[in-house]
Each structure stands twice: as structure tokens, then as C-alpha cells.
């Protein structure tokens, strides 16, 4: 296997960052607004702020994938990328790293912020487990969308993957409500990771990593872009 072309990978990440910068700036402003809403320490502001934060996170992940992969194909800039001295694996790694960084920053800020709000306010601490499951779902949904975007060239399928994986959060929340051992933890004062919680978190993590590895493996085997 040829060695990776790190300088070009970095340049491709920088190019994607430059293209995504305005959207990311808008997301940062919306995120700051949502955090300020949480800072008002009023019940209505808490719900509005949390909802806005989830919307920002979902929007950031979808826009990031859309800008760096889907639009690139539509604008036919891939032809230009192909003229660079890079392999399909280099290209895959640049897209993976760029998207993961773009997604990971708001994701981690939001996850840590949410856990801190739960732990240091009168909200029951058991909600930490519940929110970790929700963040696990968003992570898995992001990985599904990213893998599909990198593996499938159809714009329609990409949009379908993005929307369906993120929208699945609603049935997922309802499903968690049906599992008594999980909903009881969410209402309680203790942070308990019982068997169903660990199983769901493990499934989300394994699915996320497996999808990214599988897509990487597919790109690794490619000798040409098409």
C-alpha cells in the first residue's frame, strides 16, 4: 500500500473547512444563543435551549456532510481532486477527519455541557444516562450519514440517510420510555449503567466504528476513484 500523502490531506481538510466556515459560524452563534438560554435558569428556557442545541448539532453534522461530500459531487469538484496526487484512501481520510473534527467539537461541547447542567442543577442525576443514550444515537446517526455519503454517490440516498437516521431519534426516545429499567433510572437520583443501558451504548459505539471502518476498508481496496 502506498504511504499517505499527509500534506495534501491537510490541504483538503483546510479546503473543506474554508467552504464550511460560514455555516459553522452560524451554528456557533446559534449554539451560544442556546447556551445563554440555558443560563437563564428558567424551565421554559431550559427546554428551548436544549432543543435548539440538538437542532444545532444535527444541522452542523448534516451541513458538514452535505458541503464537503454531496455538494462536491454536484459541483463536480471531485474531478479537480482526482487531478491531485492522492489515492482514494487519502481522499477518504481527509473527508473523515474533516467531518469528524467539525462534528466532534460541537458534539463534545454539547455533551459535556448537558452533563454538567444535569449534575449541578436540581434535575435528577439519572438523566445523565438518558442523555448519554441520546448523544450515542446522534453519534451513530452521524456515522451512518457520513458512511453513506462517502460510499454512495446518489444525492437522493444521501439525503434519505441523513434525514431518516436523525429523525429516528423520535422513535428512539419513545422506545427508551418503554423500557422501564431505563426510564426509572432517568427519574432517579443515581447514575446507574445497567445491562440494557450498556447494551444500547455498546451497540451505538460498535455500529459507529464498524460503519466508518467498513467504508475505510472499501476505499482502501479501491485503485481508482470510480
Amino acid at each position, binding site marked *: 500500500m502506498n504511504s499517505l500523502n499527509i500534506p495534501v490531506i491537510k490541504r483538503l481538510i483546510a479546503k473543506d473547512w474554508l467552504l464550511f*466556515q*460560514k455555516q*459553522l*459560524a*452560524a451554528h*456557533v*452563534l446559534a449554539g*451560544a444563543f442556546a*447556551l*445563554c438560554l*440555558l*443560563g*437563564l435558569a428558567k424551565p421554559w428556557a431550559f427546554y428551548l435551549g436544549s432543543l435548539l442545541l440538538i437542532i444545532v448539532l444535527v444541522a452542523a453534522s448534516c451541513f458538514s456532510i452535505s458541503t464537503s461530500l454531496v455538494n462536491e459531487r454536484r459541483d463536480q469538484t471531485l474531478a479537480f481532486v482526482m487531478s491531485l496526487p492522492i489515492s482514494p484512501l487519502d481522499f477518504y481520510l481527509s473527508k473523515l477527519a474533516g467531518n469528524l473534527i467539525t462534528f466532534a467539537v460541537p458534539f463534545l461541547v454539547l455533551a459535556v*455541557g448537558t452533563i*454538567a*447542567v444535569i*449534575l*449541578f*442543577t436540581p434535575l435528577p442525576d439519572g438523566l445523565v444516562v438518558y442523555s448519554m443514550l441520546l448523544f450515542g444515537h446522534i453519534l451513530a446517526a452521524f456515522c451512518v450519514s457520513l458512511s453513506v455519503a462517502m460510499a454512495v454517490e446518489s444525492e437522493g440516498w444521501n439525503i434519505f440517510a441523513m434525514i431518516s437516521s436523525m429523525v429516528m431519534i423520535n422513535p428512539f426516545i419513545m422506545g427508551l420510555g418503554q423500557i422501564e429499567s431505563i426510564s426509572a433510572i432517568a427519574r432517579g437520583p443515581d447514575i446507574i449503567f445497567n445491562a440494557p443501558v450498556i447494551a444500547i451504548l455498546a451497540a451505538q459505539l460498535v455500529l459507529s466504528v464498524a460503519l466508518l471502518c467498513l467504508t475505510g476498508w472499501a476505499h482502501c481496496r479501491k485503485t481508482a476513484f470510480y
Partner: protein
Amino acid sequence: MRLHYLDNLRALAMLAGVLFHAALAYSPLIHPYWPPADRSQSQLVDIFAWFLHLFRMPLFFMIAGYFAAELIERRGMLGLMRNRARRILIPFAVLLVPIVMSLSWSTQWAAANVQHPSPVLQWVAQFSLQANPPQLPPSTSHLWFLYYLLWFYVLLWAMRSLLPETVWRLPERLPRWWICVAPMLLSPALASVVAPHPAPESFLPQFWAFAFFGSFFAFGTAVYRRRGWIDALSPIWLASIGVLLYGLWFALLRHATIDPSNPRAPWSLAILGAYISVLMTLACWVAGRRWLNAQSRVMRYLAGGSYWTYLLHLPLLFLAQYLLMDLSWHWSLKFAIAVFATLLLSYLSYELLIRRTELRRFVG
């Protein structure tokens, strides 16, 4: 070219922070809420401390905004972010936990050992007797200034990415009388919190702090783009009007009744507070440009150690004031000793640990 007046202003404002925090222990107004609040108090402390409080931090943010714009022009946005990560983010991340822990330790020690405790220390002593005391929310302590600066740099990047150049040129077209109207726009922020405005120490950002301090930061960037814009203003006139308004503000504050369930400043205090903040910040800026724009070895040294002093001063000050609490001395003597001990230890540690080491790149 080095701007000596801004270096000097920043150093003086940082050292004024030590005086301000030291004075709070002898302030009757904040006595129920300040951990090292002393038995010996004076109304004089209130008069001076709260005057300083209204413009000290706005001046800091204005200077920070000015330097941010300068850094962007010289090194670009990436250069600004790298520089600020080294000078603000790393010191904040590294020092926050030790500072909060040392404040907590000294306060718990004082609650257990001081014979004449403040109301807060009494509360801490009762609180610690509980079997499972609830955890207090995490706080940025006095490093909230650094925390908000980090936010403002990120927001500056976001705004510069989104807004076209024509919007950034707007301040260049504004007439000078706009400064008379601008404080009215700040007053809703001050009306949404108690008077005198508190320090926004929570990790969750506050709307009012974004609006109030962020406006001074933005004004600092605008002043950089339009250098000389405010230089013609008279610092004496600005300060005179500021002091007169402060007299009115303080008189109103003493008679203000604030609902504990909804603690908010009356509009009269908020509007006056906003005007005093703007007038006095401008007065300091213009006065600094006129009278502090010279290189002096003493000021250079003080400026060099001022950032480190700012970071370190509160735990040292609290400890000094806890040790002085049981003494029946006059407040002015305790105040002088606490300030002297804090500055001595801060500058001594600066000399030994920072000035001649690589650490000066971060906090020097």
C-alpha cells in the same frame, strides 16, 4: 510599535482589581454575600469600590477588543486564535482547578477556625455539617474574564465570517455624538440583573454579560479601525460627568428596594450605570493616551507581572483576609496589609517563577 498607554492602562486596571477585591471585605453593601467580609466596615469603601466596579472590567474588555483587532490585522484570524489559545485558553484551563480548589480550601478552613466569621462563612460551616451536602455548581471564579474573552474571540470569528465588510465599516461613519446614545442600548443588560451587576461566574454564558461586556469588546475593535476617533474627547469632562452621575447612582442604590424573588436593578440605576460605565471607560482610555503614553521602567515591570497577579491574587487575598478577620484593627489597616501581602507574594512569585522562564510566554 508598542502602545505604552494601553500596556500601562491594562496594568493599572489589573492592579485596580486587587484593590477592588480587597475592598469588598470591608463593604457594608456586599457583607452578607462575600466570604472574607470583615466586622470592620466603612461606607467609604462602598463609595470607591462600586465606582471602580462600573468601569474597570469594561475598560479591560475594550482594551482586549482593540488588541484583538490589531492581532487580526498583523497575523490574521488564525494568528489571533493561536496567540489567544496560548495566552488565555491554556492559563485558564491549567489554573482554574487549582484556583477554585485553593479558594474552597481556605474558605472551609476559615469557616472552621475563624472566631468572627462572615455570614457566608457561617453558612459554609452549617452547610459542611450536613451528612450529604449538595454539590455547588462549578464556577469560573474571577477567571470569568478569561472565559468571556474566549467566547468573544470565537464570536468575533463567527461575526467576521458571516458579516460583509460594509457592516464592519459602519463604525467609521458614526458621528461622535453616537457615544451619548450608545449607553441607552446597554441599559437593558444592566436592568436584567441586580445592581451593582454581579460577576458572571457561571460556565453557562449569560445574555446580559454578552451584551454588556461584549459591547465594550466590540467598541475596542471599532476604535482600532478608526484610530483617533475618541482622542479629541476631554477626559476631564467625561470623568466629571461620570462622577456626578455616580453620586446620583449611589444615592439611588442606597434607597433601592430589590425583590429577592426577582432580583433586578431598577431602570434608573441601569441607565445611570450604563452611562457611568461608558463615560468612565472612555475617560480612562483618553486620559491614558494623553498622560500614560510613555515608557517607564516601573510601569513596564508592573505591566509585565500584572497578568500573573490578576490570576493569582484572589486565593492569596482571601487567605490574607481570613487570617486578619479575628483582629480588631481598623479596616484601613487590614485593607493595606492584605493588599500589600497579596501584591508582594504575587510579584515575588512572578519574579521567581515567570519573568525569566518560558512561562512568561503564557502569563508574563
